[in-house]
């Protein structure tokens, strides 16, 4: 067992733990915090099913962002879509061939899309970075962390592309390492520079996720302006402080 393997094994357990506990904690807080009043942005759906549709359009199509800014939407949507494609491609390192998902993951289409998705991801991120630098309004609202986040994602995408197209890594050994993590049976990590960079940055991303604006991912689902049904007249809504002290004057 090399030092590198020990360090990365420990790093990944720590990162996963922080990620799961940190994001879990936030989701718990969002779910627990009451929304005392009805505040959907109208026109809003008047049924629960309608809210599901509205939410799906936001999550899948980024509908509101599309209304707001076509460039930001384009780059943002490309980035997120390629992130999804890359995720599917990477499943082959985490699934054993016996898994019922394997035939799907192993599809030529999934693998190729994921492979070139890396370029799309970089393109999307570059577009977002360019907006942050060249649009005076967006530059004004950007903190150092906003730039660093884009650079981190670009470094992850870049190091991944390097392994795909320039300097291949030993993916059989890598897969053994990943599966070893899942089975609590540590296996040696192939020590290629790009792989170490790639994995190190991914671990960093997992660690900062619960403490950063990456919380937009779970947060969206809890946003009352988007997930509330527009029916305050039909159905009385009380939560938190509006559910306390309900003694109102009665008829008679």
């Amino acid at each position, binding site marked *: 067992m090399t030092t590198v393997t020990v360090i990365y094994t420990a790093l990944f357990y720590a990162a996963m733990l922080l990620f799961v506990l940190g994001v879990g904690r936030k989701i718990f807080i969002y779910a627990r*915090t009451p929304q005392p009043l009805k505040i959907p942005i109208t026109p809003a759906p008047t049924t629960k099913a309608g809210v599901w549709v509205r939410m799906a359009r936001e999550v899948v199509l980024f509908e509101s962002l599309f209304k707001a800014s076509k460039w930001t939407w384009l780059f*943002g949507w490309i980035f997120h879509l390629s992130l999804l494609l890359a995720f599917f491609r990477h499943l082959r390192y985490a699934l054993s061939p016996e898994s019922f998902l394997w035939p799907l993951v192993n599809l030529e289409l999934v693998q190729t899309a994921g492979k070139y998705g890396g370029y799309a991801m970089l393109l999307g991120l570059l577009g977002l970075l360019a907006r942050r630098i060249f649009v005076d309004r967006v530059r004004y*609202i950007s903190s150092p962390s906003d730039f660093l986040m884009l650079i981190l994602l670009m470094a992850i995408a870049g190091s991944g592309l390097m392994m795909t197209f320039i300097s291949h890594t030993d993916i059989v050994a890598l897969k053994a390492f990943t599966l070893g993590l899942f089975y609590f049976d540590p296996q040696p990590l192939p020590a290629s520079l790009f792989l170490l960079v790639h994995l190190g940055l991914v671990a960093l991303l997992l660690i900062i996720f619960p403490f950063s604006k990456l919380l937009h991912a779970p947060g969206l689902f809890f946003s009352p302006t988007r997930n509330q049904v527009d029916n305050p007249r039909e159905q009385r809504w009380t939560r938190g402080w509006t559910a306390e002290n309900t003694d109102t004057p009665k008829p008679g």
Partner: protein
Amino acid sequence: MANFETPPLTEFMEVPPVIPGTMEHSSPYIAKPEIQAPLAYPGQLVENWEQKAVFKLGELVKSNRALQVFLDTCVKCGACTDKCHYYLGTSDPKNMPVARQDLLRSVYRRYYTLAGKLFPKLVGARDMTKSVLDEWYSYFHQCSQCRRCSVYCPYGIDTAEVSMAAREIMDSVGQGQKYCNEIIGKVFKIGNNLGLPEPALVNTLEGLEEDVKEATGVDVKFPVDVKGADVLLITPSADFFAEPHIDGLIGYAKVFHQAGISWTLSSYASEAANFSMFIGSRHNLKKQAMRIREAALELGVKRIVVGECGHAWRVAYSFWNTLVGPFDFLDRNYPVPQHICEFTYDLIQKDALRFDKEANDDKVVTFHDSCNVARASRMGNMPGGQFVIPRAVIKASVNKFVDMAPDTIGEATFCCGGGGGLLTDDLLELRVKGSLPRMQALKQVVDEHGVTHVAAICAICKAQFSKILPYYKFPMDMIQSVHGLVSNAIRLDRKEI
């Protein structure tokens, strides 16, 4: 005259460049102790206000999911940066919604997030200081809580919620805004924003009866405190005296008359407006709303109808049932509450009203969607009814109607510039500049379609338009009440039974 320049109206609305600090001098008068007292707020900045403000922020975040989620999830994508009328009219970057939220978010990060505690500079976190408070006071009174930014935010972050929270925090440490808080005090003491006592109200309404009789020869009644009436009308008190509001009130009375439905005003709850929403004050919001429940019970009415008022309709439609419901003592065959436009629209649908549209043939009319009606409420039983129904009422009353550009109406409507508790002369520069996008859209239909009048269903919009139209070289009386148009055209030929 004011010491600022009215922005020029150009061919197209352009997004202006960022010019920091153009509006940092804009700040409303601070409430004196005697104005704070009736609202149960400290009279002046309390000791240790920094800690108390931070503590209050924590309390609000813990008890309001919207605030919790909105403060965490912004990714600074910039989608909202060109959506606020105050930014478009002033170029001040702190009037970009995300930058306005960040005034508060930076403090939240510093005290309530790990990243802000450890690396404040990196994530833009700030200590709560006097200069931060001053900035809050200035820029959270440059938000009309119109929710336009939230339409475009990929996470639905609503700056109105953030600005309400900031105002509540400032009030709770003793720094309130004179305009709003003085008005709320008047409601508690007298029953309405204007401080119009019952005898004056009765007198005004009698005068209106005479005026209508003289103009039409018909006995249209303006009843007050009539027990057992079918409908309690809750309307903004501006309807009792301001122009063009009062024409709207006359219109409601004519509709009730023609429909043969008995109605009454209440001298106790003679106000639909609820400025406690603007300052984010929970207990005052509920206390104000409770007066309406009490009046409805006292008078024994069957229905509640709400007059033309934007934020009041939001409070009535979205919050009344929550705050002071359930309304199971009212007739559930009708929506509770019902908007006057819904009421009139229903009668039109039933063919119960007839109009001589020619009475409005001197006008080419457009409609200004008020923000709180457009983005925070509904009319009728389908989403977007709040856009269809007022237009249908107008079209029933006038022959010539034209809409403004699609990206300036409906859910994308621009604020009049005076909403959210900013309708005060100490914020006149902000109000004039903030109305630029609306004026721009208006100019376009004036030039292209010869529009002569703009109708609205909000007391604040109407007062704001009357004030700022002349700055943009439009006639002051261009602004109309929707029910003022109804009033001109409705036939008063009901057979007395």
